[in-house]
């Protein structure tokens, strides 16, 4: 118990210290969310829009992003304002990773096992990186039930750390998408409906991002 308190105090202290020194370096905006919510597709969309190049590979196979990826000096402009930041794409947060799930996507057993192992490390890394963020876009799949523990844990942790956030209700191009469901599930948060795949409503997202920072 004492050790836990010491660890918590240590985490808080290092968080405060990193925040003080963060002011002097570039702003970091992180993409967080559950697995397959379209974080990398959104990262690619942002990078294509402003840098003309993609950031990483997106896939229907879960846990395609298993390591933190950063794109530096992304400059976005909206309504005469501009913002330069480092964009951080993170592995999807999950409470379970079963290698057998990957077999359904045609992966061989050894590949599936190795993907699962890398994915678990990715989740841990993503959680550890939370403290380094200046702002987070919480990317949710608007075709799925938003009230699940992963979403609640991400939002709760960002609130506890006082990190500004914007909920991105992704996949607006899909027929059963519902941004209203996400708004109703998380009242009190700013929610913006987009399609990272088609680029729908990205201008609004950039505008909201600039307002938040």
């Amino acid at each position, binding site marked *: 118990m004492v050790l836990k308190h010491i660890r918590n105090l240590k985490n808080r202290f290092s968080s405060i210290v990193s925040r003080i020194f963060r002011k002097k370096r570039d702003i970091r905006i992180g993409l967080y969310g559950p697995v397959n919510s379209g974080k990398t597709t959104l990262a690619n969309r942002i990078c294509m829009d402003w840098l003309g190049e993609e950031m990483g590979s997106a896939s229907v196979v879960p846990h395609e992003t298993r390591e933190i990826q950063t794109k530096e000096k992304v400059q976005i402009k909206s309504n005469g304002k501009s913002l330069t930041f480092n964009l951080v794409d993170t592995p999807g947060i999950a409470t*379970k990773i079963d290698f057998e799930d990957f077999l359904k996507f045609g992966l061989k057993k050894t590949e599936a096992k190795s993907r699962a192992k890398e994915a678990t490390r990715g989740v841990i890394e993503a959680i*550890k990186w939370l403290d380094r963020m200046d702002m987070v876009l919480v990317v949710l799949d608007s075709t799925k039930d938003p009230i699940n523990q992963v979403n609640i844990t991400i939002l709760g942790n960002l609130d506890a750390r006082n990190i500004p956030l914007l909920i991105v209700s992704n996949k607006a191009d899909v027929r059963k998408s519902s941004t209203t469901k996400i708004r109703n599930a998380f009242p009190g948060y700013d929610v913006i409906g987009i399609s990272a795949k088609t680029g729908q409503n990205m201008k609004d997202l950039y505008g909201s991002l600039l307002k938040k920072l």
Partner: protein
Amino acid sequence: MNLKIKFIPYEKMKMDSFSDILRDVKENTIILIDAKLKPEEESEIIEKTMESVSEKFSGIELSSIDFAGEEEMNNFERFKNIIIERIIGKKRGMTIIGPAKIIHKIKKNPKELLLYM
């Protein structure tokens, strides 16, 4: 398969480590805790779970419910609730943690949890 349900008071959970909880969960035990976990505790248990994932143990299903109904409170009730929770030292509610192999999904409404096994 023998399925067990174990109740752990929040105070005991704080004294033990999450590794102890995970050890039980790996042995097909569903853990009930008489409080809503703090976000930092939830992320810590996710981290510990990820460290424990193996071919035999794929992870957990976890869900918390808030008995106090904070979302429907006015400012005075919210303040009163903060004071009560400070006194009792925990967030009023309940947390369920179970093995993902057994609990496939936990559906959460604001006031109830439904376990799909």
